[in-house]
């Protein structure tokens, strides 16, 4: 085999220009495919990141009416029981769940104030001890909620940066009192995302999809919730999956467990905000147009393959006397066949490697020019080189068989 490779490289090297021109079809085909695949992959990763956030595989399961969130201000819906302790344990014990938090929430709350300052349209959540870590938040000033806050119904609050800015423009929030629906709460701490993350927005469509106006959030212990709202309110579950791939599964499992709290109500159900599903839908949209491009690029590859076959046939004719000599010296039919197949496969594989390099460069250039993200896909690279080798073998077969079947006498006679 090494001898065949040596002969193949020597043959290709001795006809440098011709070999390069032969490879060109394969190079162009592979380069276009790699460029397209890199762009698809880059776009997909961007979509995934934008929707899911960096490294935080959270699934939220909440009550929905149809496809919209249930509006809690209408009161607790009929036939929906609170989530029991047992269910919470069951959810936390799921294989793919790392952590789970249960909380109650209101959006567009207007009566959160501090003196003359107020938080307009803010979000208020009554959370448990696991909330911050499950949802990827950290307290950067003050302290997080403690066990005792829940036990003693201590009226403590955590503010995010937007809420802190709105309520305390002078910047000194810690230990101050804020009023929520007229009840005084002490600011125990300020929190924010553990990892800063903002979706990358390339166009208007991205903006509509990913951008959410942040009006500020105030967290209080869930034990205090009945002071502001009613008792036994159904909770929202935030579950952190072990991986992004497990998110859809976790969503379904949590939905199933929580659905047992809903009796005789056809309109209301617990549903997961399946971000992975959303991302997939958007990815499919971009992939389907691009897969058409891959088919077109494949035609270039096919034409390249035919070019290789053509040149190999010429090469067999040119080297008829060489083949005859080798046969006279004792080369078997199989030896000649393998020699020519190797040469053709090496030729297209080199083309494949050059094509991959050109494709990556092309993807980078496209990315620079249009702003579309590009990401190099290792499996695509391996597959491309392997595929170009297969092209060499397939299209080299006819010329190689022709060479192997040459009669040594006829071959020697031709010079």
């Amino acid at each position, binding site marked *: 085999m*090494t*001898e065949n490779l040596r002969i193949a490289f020597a043959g290709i090297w001795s006809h440098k220009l011709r070999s390069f021109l032969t490879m060109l079809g394969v190079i162009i085909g592979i380069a276009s495919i790699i460029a397209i695949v890199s762009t698809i992959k880059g776009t997909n990763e961007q979509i995934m990141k934008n929707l899911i956030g960096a490294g935080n595989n959270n699934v939220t399961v909440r009550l929905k009416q149809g496809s919209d969130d249930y509006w809690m201000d209408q009161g607790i819906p009929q036939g929906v029981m609170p989530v029991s302790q047992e269910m919470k344990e069951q959810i936390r014990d799921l294989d793919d769940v790392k952590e789970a938090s249960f909380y109650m929430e209101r959006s567009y709350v207007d009566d959160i104030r501090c003196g003359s300052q107020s938080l307009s349209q803010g979000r208020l959540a009554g959370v448990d001890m696991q909330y911050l870590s499950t949802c990827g938040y950290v307290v950067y000033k003050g302290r997080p909620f403690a066990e005792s806050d829940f036990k003693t119904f201590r009226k403590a609050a955590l503010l995010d940066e937007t809420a802190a800015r709105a309520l305390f423009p002078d910047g000194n929030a810690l230990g101050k009192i804020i009023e929520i629906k007229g009840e005084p709460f002490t600011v125990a701490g300020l929190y924010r995302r553990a990892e800063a993350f903002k979706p990358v927005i390339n166009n208007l469509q991205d903006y509509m999809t990913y951008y959410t106006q942040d009006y500020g959030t105030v967290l209080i212990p869930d034990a205090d919730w009945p002071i502001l709202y009613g008792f036994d309110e159904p909770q929202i579950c935030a579950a952190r999956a072990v991986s992004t791939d497990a998110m859809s599964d976790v969503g379904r499992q949590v939905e199933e467990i929580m659905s047992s709290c809903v009796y005789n109500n056809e309109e209301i159900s617990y549903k997961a905000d399946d971000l992975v599903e959303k991302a997939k839908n958007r990815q499919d949209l971009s992939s389907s147009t691009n897969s058409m491009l891959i088919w077109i690029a494949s035609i270039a590859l096919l034409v390249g393959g035919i070019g290789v076959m053509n040149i190999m046939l010429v090469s067999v004719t040119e080297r008829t006397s060489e083949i005859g000599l080798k046969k006279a*010296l*004792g080369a078997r*039919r199989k030896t000649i066949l393998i020699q020519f197949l190797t040469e053709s496969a090496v030729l297209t594989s080199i083309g494949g490697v050059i094509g991959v390099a050109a494709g990556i460069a092309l993807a980078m250039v496209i990315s620079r020019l249009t702003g579309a993200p590009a990401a190099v896909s290792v499996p695509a690279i391996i597959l491309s080189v392997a595929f170009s080798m297969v092209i060499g073998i397939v299209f080299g077969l006819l010329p190689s068989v022709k060479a192997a079947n040459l009669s040594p*006498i006829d071959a*020697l006679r031709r010079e």
Partner: protein
Amino acid sequence: MILECKDICKSYMQGKMELPVLKNICFQMEEGEYTAVMGPSGSGKSTLMNIIGCLDLPTSGTLLLDGEDVSRCRDDQLADLRLKKIGFIFQSFQLLPYQSARENVALPLVYAGVPRRERLQRAGQVLESVGLGDRMDFLPGQLSGGQKQRVAIARAMINHPRILLADEPTGALDSRSGAQVMDLFDQLSRQGVSILMITHDPGVAARAGRIVYIRDGILSDNDEGEEAEAEGGGGYEEA
């Protein structure tokens, strides 16, 4: 007995006509014999050479090479016989232009599965023995005709063949190079190598221990058409 032809016939089909080229050839060669086959063009000497060289099969008859009946062998078996028992020397040298003299000589060892290092070492030794020790890494294009033919002889000898078949080995050489090549054949013959040489040059044939003649596909020990042959080129004197 190194070679025995029994009633070998070979005919080709030309359209629907059967064209006999060799007619009942009976011929024997002892081990170490140096034989020249003479005959005009179209007499069938190349066809005979192809059959003895296991490049082609006879239409009928039996060919025993080194005691083995090769007349009914299959393609790959013929290839193995060529590899192990026969050394070829062609009029036009048949060297691969993009490989060095040493690599050309080592080529048969590739098919014998000899590792590269050993191949090149052995090729070097054989090249030394034909007086080309200083030309080993030259490409064929950088060698003279006589040197090329000596490379070809080295290639034919590298696998220690049982018989050396030479087809007009001096046909493409000037008289001085031709004489050098013929000296090499003499030397090999003295070493006990069996040589069968095709030529239409009486001077070259005269160097062989035995001359057989072929005319219109019939082989004989004496030439009936000597006058016609005498027109051929002059002989080579020892260099």
